[in-house]
């Protein structure tokens, strides 16, 4: 494989790293409510979700034919820009994970690419009308639709089962949650793993290592599937806590209603070719389910921070992507190495900071807040 240059190898590795953070970030979408209601034990939930993501990756044959879905001009995109965009997306994913906010991995990727292409090829390389159509409108519409669906469904579920024996009702809905959560995981694997496969495949084609119109080689499918599955299995526990406990206290009928709403919205939109973010759909469902149970408390402060994170995801990732692209453009291989090393150092720093107040399978349900600093404010730690 003498076509595989240094840069191409770096892009492949970075793409797999992004895929890993994508799985890691999105475990919560499928499993947060099941974990919060006790339908599945935390470890079991992430294992089921991880395996279904890998299965989904192998099932999906329709690998993304464009890198960005038309948001940037794919003919202007070079491997260097893809690398810069991926760095922006990875760093944003890690930062939002640290503060426990569910933000969209797809928006981070789009943002990173937009920034990188803007700097690398000029603003005419970015299709802003497509940004509105594929990012903005679904971002507003999909959580609202999922929220309304979950709200009505939750209200009816409580109304209908009010006369039933409590423990039977709880048990029944818990069992239902396992099925609905598994469907979300499977759908996630077929959608998100193929984005990474598409990026790697298109990079290999542009480098001449694969012929035009070539499908992804088996090693690409396998490595992308494993990366997203492993990320899902390791689980972004901080985000799981926010979605399962932080937004509202979820009971099993609400969890079932929320997951059913997410599944319905994801599948109908995918079927009608409507792009959306799984994260935003799942968050909207959970908020709707919170409102649907009378007197259930929705923590609007957490919801507000989450929406703020959605708004700045794309520009923030674009900024990092743009800076990285400038370094790669002017610095060549040396610039690429510098960006990669700085990116790795920042990522390691974020992981170190997260250790101060770790969230893991054993304590994910204990609390509803994800703090960066250690809990007792006796000694003031600075959040780096």
């Amino acid at each position, binding site marked *: 494989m003498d076509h595989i240059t240094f840069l191409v190898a770096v892009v492949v590795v970075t793409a797999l790293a992004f895929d890993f953070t994508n799985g890691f970030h999105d475990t919560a979408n499928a499993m947060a409510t099941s974990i919060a209601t006790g339908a599945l034990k935390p470890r079991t939930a992430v294992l089921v979700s991880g395996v279904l993501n890998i299965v989904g990756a192998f*099932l999906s044959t329709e690998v993304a034919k464009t890198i960005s879905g038309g948001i940037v001009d794919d003919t202007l995109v070079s491997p260097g820009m893809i690398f810069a965009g991926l760095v922006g997306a990875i760093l944003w994913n890690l930062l939002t994970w640290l503060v426990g906010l569910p933000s969209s991995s797809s928006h981070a990727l789009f943002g990173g690419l937009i920034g990188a292409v803007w700097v690398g090829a000029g603003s005419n390389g970015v299709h802003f009308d497509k940004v509105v159509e594929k990012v903005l*409108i679904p971002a507003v519409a999909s959580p609202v639709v999922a929220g309304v*669906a979950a709200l009505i*469904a939750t209200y009816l*579920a409580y109304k209908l089962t009010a006369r039933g024996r409590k423990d039977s*009702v709880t048990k029944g809905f818990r069992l239902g949650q396992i*099925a609905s959560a598994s469907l979300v995981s499977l759908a996630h694997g077929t959608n998100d793993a193929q984005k990474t496969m598409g990026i790697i495949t298109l990079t290999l084609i542009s480098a001449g290592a694969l012929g035009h119109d070539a499908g992804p080689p088996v090693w690409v499918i396998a490595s992308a599937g494993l990366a997203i599955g492993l990320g899902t299995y390791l689980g972004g526990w901080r985000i799981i806590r926010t979605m399962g406990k932080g937004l509202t206290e979820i009971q099993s009928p609400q969890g079932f209603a929320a997951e059913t709403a997410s599944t319905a919205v994801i599948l109908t939109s995918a079927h*009608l070719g409507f792009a959306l973010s799984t994260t935003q759909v799942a968050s909207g469902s959970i908020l709707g389910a919170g409102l649907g149970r009378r007197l259930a408390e929705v923590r609007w402060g957490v919801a507000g921070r989450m929406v703020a994170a959605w708004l700045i995801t794309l520009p923030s990732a674009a900024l990092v992507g743009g800076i990285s692209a400038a370094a790669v453009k002017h610095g060549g291989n040396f610039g690429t190495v510098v960006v990669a090393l700085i990116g790795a150092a920042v990522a390691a720093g974020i992981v170190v900071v997260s250790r101060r107040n770790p969230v893991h399978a054993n304590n994910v349900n204990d609390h509803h807040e994800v703090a960066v600093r250690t809990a007792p404010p006796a000694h003031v730690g600075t959040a780096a």
Partner: protein
Amino acid sequence: MSLDWNALGQVTAVSIGVTVAVVVVFALGVLGLARFEGAREDGGGTSSLGLAQAGLCFLACAAVVAYGIYLIVPQFH
């Protein structure tokens, strides 16, 4: 920019319709199950009506799940 309002409307209508239908049917199933379990514990008798209701409702939900898997897996189309 061409926004497909039709597709957006369809997604909205179908999503809300399917979600509410599945959750209502499932809730009725859970109610049937609760009745069956309640009858078994209280008087030793069984509520076969409750069991039938539960079975029927869960079967309907399983069919929806199967259709969902059909939609997800491209090899099936």
